[in-house]
């Protein structure tokens, strides 16, 4: 089954209870996009179809998507620019960078401290080498406690380890409780942005999904009405859930506290209402103490969407203690390595500083043009293009093309609040790719290198090229270049004389 979101070309506002079918595409269009792996259950994990380039072409055709992305990214960018001058975001970035670099350098010590403190507070800590191990632990826990429903909130890490799928396989119901995530679950899609997962959808599209889910037309389509509707539906689920699973924005080693930032208040319910709270944390998300945490917790929402503070900052240290009014009876912290540890001390180490604010995504012209879906990985945008191949290995499909989907314009590195030189990392990620395409271009560049390191062969090549250009040109323009030039003349002409003729 494919995405069920009613995009514009499929007819907007289709009747409730009648999933709008994807209209036949124009001739030659491929049905790429994304496809759900399982037919039911509404879990948002997907198989990715088509090459990355095909998926970008598909996304570029979607005008509604374009409009949705444009309006969101423009307003976030404006708010962030205001923050930049009002709060001195640029100066704050220097300190954030230092903090995160020292965190990564001291990672093993910080993690042991974190682990000890969580245990002291009465929690359980599990170190998982990979996603499979983490999923086994969490499903095992649910089965051991007889839990049938799991409520989830705010977690890219669980997206990465495919937790929903693992729970489903164990016949445990999973409910996404953040509005955006829930929308995607209904739409059978995966997040397109780290902090605003459904940013690629608009209000009408969401209303149609809600009507379908509720089986009634009686769902308002204004913003407040939609949020109120979702709130009622989701609260019903909280009452049933035996385990609440959350992500972790930051772990504070000195006290063993996990911080979960959010704007809706659902993470608060997920981490306090069910009997058991499982927090899933990538191993690099730890800071030393509250001084550092306070700084990062400020920078994060500012860089993210130009917000001066998150609406809710949940600080959780262990399970409920005697005399406390709320909180879970059990607290489990699952710390995932998943390939991260191996990056320390390498040329990619700085990628571990990422605080997942999403600023690099919406500053990226590629992401703005095609959205996160086209990347086909839980982490999209520039940071996704760097870390997905690292986490999945140099011969993975992701490493074949993701690092190449960038013009290296540098807008991402400029936006990053912890100063990760993303464009340099992208170039290094390209060098690391061992796909057939890279090997092929490697051969071409070996020839290039031999010609261009000697003035004589270089001159000869240049003379030949200019002859070819002149021969191909008509009225000063070439419109169908051979070889590697074919990609050039697919969408643009090549001036054969300069200045170009008009």
């Amino acid at each position: 089954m494919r995405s069920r979101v009613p995009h514009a070309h499929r007819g907007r506002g289709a009747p409730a209870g009648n999933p709008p079918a994807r209209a036949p595409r124009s001739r030659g269009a491929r049905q790429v996009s994304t496809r759900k792996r399982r037919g039911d259950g509404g879990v948002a994990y997907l198989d990715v179809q088509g090459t990355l380039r095909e998926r970008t072409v598909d996304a570029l055709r979607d005008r509604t998507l374009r409009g949705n992305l444009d309006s969101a990214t423009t307003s976030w960018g404006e708010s962030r620019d205001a923050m930049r001058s009002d709060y001195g975001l640029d100066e704050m970035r220097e300190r954030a960078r230092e903090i995160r670099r020292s965190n990564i350098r001291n990672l093993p010590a910080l993690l042991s401290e974190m682990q000890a403190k969580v245990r002291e507070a009465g929690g359980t800590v599990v170190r998982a080498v990979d996603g499979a191990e983490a999923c086994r632990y969490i499903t095992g826990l649910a089965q051991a406690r007889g839990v049938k429903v799991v409520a989830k909130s705010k977690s890219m890490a669980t997206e990465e380890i495919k937790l929903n799928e693992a729970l489903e396989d164990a016949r445990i119901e999973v409910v996404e409780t953040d509005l955006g995530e829930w929308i995607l679950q209904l739409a059978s899609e995966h997040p397109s942005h780290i902090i605003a997962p459904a940013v690629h959808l608009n209000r009408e599209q969401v209303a149609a999904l809600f009507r379908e889910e509720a089986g009634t037309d009686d769902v308002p389509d204004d913003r407040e009405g939609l949020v109120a509707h979702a709130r009622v539906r989701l609260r019903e689920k909280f009452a049933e859930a035996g385990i609440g699973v959350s992500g972790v924005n930051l772990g504070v080693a000195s006290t063993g506290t996990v911080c979960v930032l959010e704007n809706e208040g659902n993470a608060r319910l997920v981490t306090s209402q069910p009997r058991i709270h499982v927090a899933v944390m990538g191993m690099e998300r730890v800071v030393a103490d509250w001084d550092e945490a306070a700084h990062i917790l400020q920078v994060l929402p500012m860089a993210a969407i130009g917000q001066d503070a998150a609406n809710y900052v949940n600080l959780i240290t262990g399970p409920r203690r005697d005399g406390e009014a709320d909180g879970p009876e059990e607290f489990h912290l699952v710390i995932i390595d998943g390939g991260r540890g191996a990056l320390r001390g390498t040329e990619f180490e700085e990628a571990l500083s990422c605080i997942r604010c999403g600023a690099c995504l919406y500053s990226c012209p590629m992401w703005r043009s095609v959205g996160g879906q086209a990347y086909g990985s839980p982490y999209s945008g520039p940071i996704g293009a760097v870390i997905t191949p690292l986490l999945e290995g140099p011969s993975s499909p992701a490493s074949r093309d993701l690092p190449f989907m960038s013009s290296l314009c540098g807008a991402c590195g400029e936006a990053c609040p912890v100063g990760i030189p993303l464009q340099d990392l992208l170039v290094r990620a390209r060098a690391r790719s061992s796909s057939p395409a890279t090997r092929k271009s490697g051969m071409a560049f070996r020839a290039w290198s031999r010609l261009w390191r000697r003035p004589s062969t270089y001159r000869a090549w240049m003379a030949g090229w200019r002859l070819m250009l002149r021969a191909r040109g008509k009225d000063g323009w070439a419109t169908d270049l051979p070889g590697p030039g074919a990609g050039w003349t697919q969408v643009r002409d090549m001036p054969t004389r300069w200045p170009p003729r008009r």
Partner: protein
Amino acid sequence: MRVMLMRTCLSEAVAPSVWKSSRRVLERCGVDVKVPRAQTCCSQPAWTAGHPDQARAVARHTIVVFSGPEEVVVPSGSCAGMVVHGYPEMFKGQPEEEAALDLARRTIELTQFLAKHDLDPGRGSRGPVTMHDSCHMLRVMDESQSPREALAKAGCEVREMQHTDRCCGFGGVFAINFPELSGRLGEEKARAAIESGAREVVSCDLGCLMHIVGVAHRQGIPLRARHVAEVLDR
């Protein structure tokens, strides 16, 4: 004052007038310009395509060709950025590291050079233009004022386009690997340029210009393109 001029491979391949204009502009300012005949390319294509060994082989040649005490002037923010920012990374821990750092220190983009030495190319210029800030000039060389100052001194009116700091979608091999996406961004840029009211887009980078004007021509947008050196030269 004596400098070495980097011709850049794109200029040689498509628009020799760019490096020739650069030389004339510098000479008009009283600068003694040496154009090393043995030069080839800064090696950026291979470097950004993910082939550092092939890039290093070409860059070594460039380091040798441009050795000396003179400043190296480059009529491209992108090639200058490659030398200034890329070479130190490329040769980290390599035998050529010192020479690479030395070249990086001496390398400067054309309009930055004019601004740094307060040189005035001084010549009247026809018609208003709009300026595209190429990404590498803007973010690697951290520069947007120098070309505007040079144009203003030459009596050229710059009409700013919307989002001049946004990428035009060229990106070297990116333009070939993802033509549709690259073309879409180029089209946005060409439209923004023409909406500025100017008919001509100017940039410090020939790659961007070739791409923008190429998309414009394909789309029937009546946009002209000139390198900043050519505008200063006319």
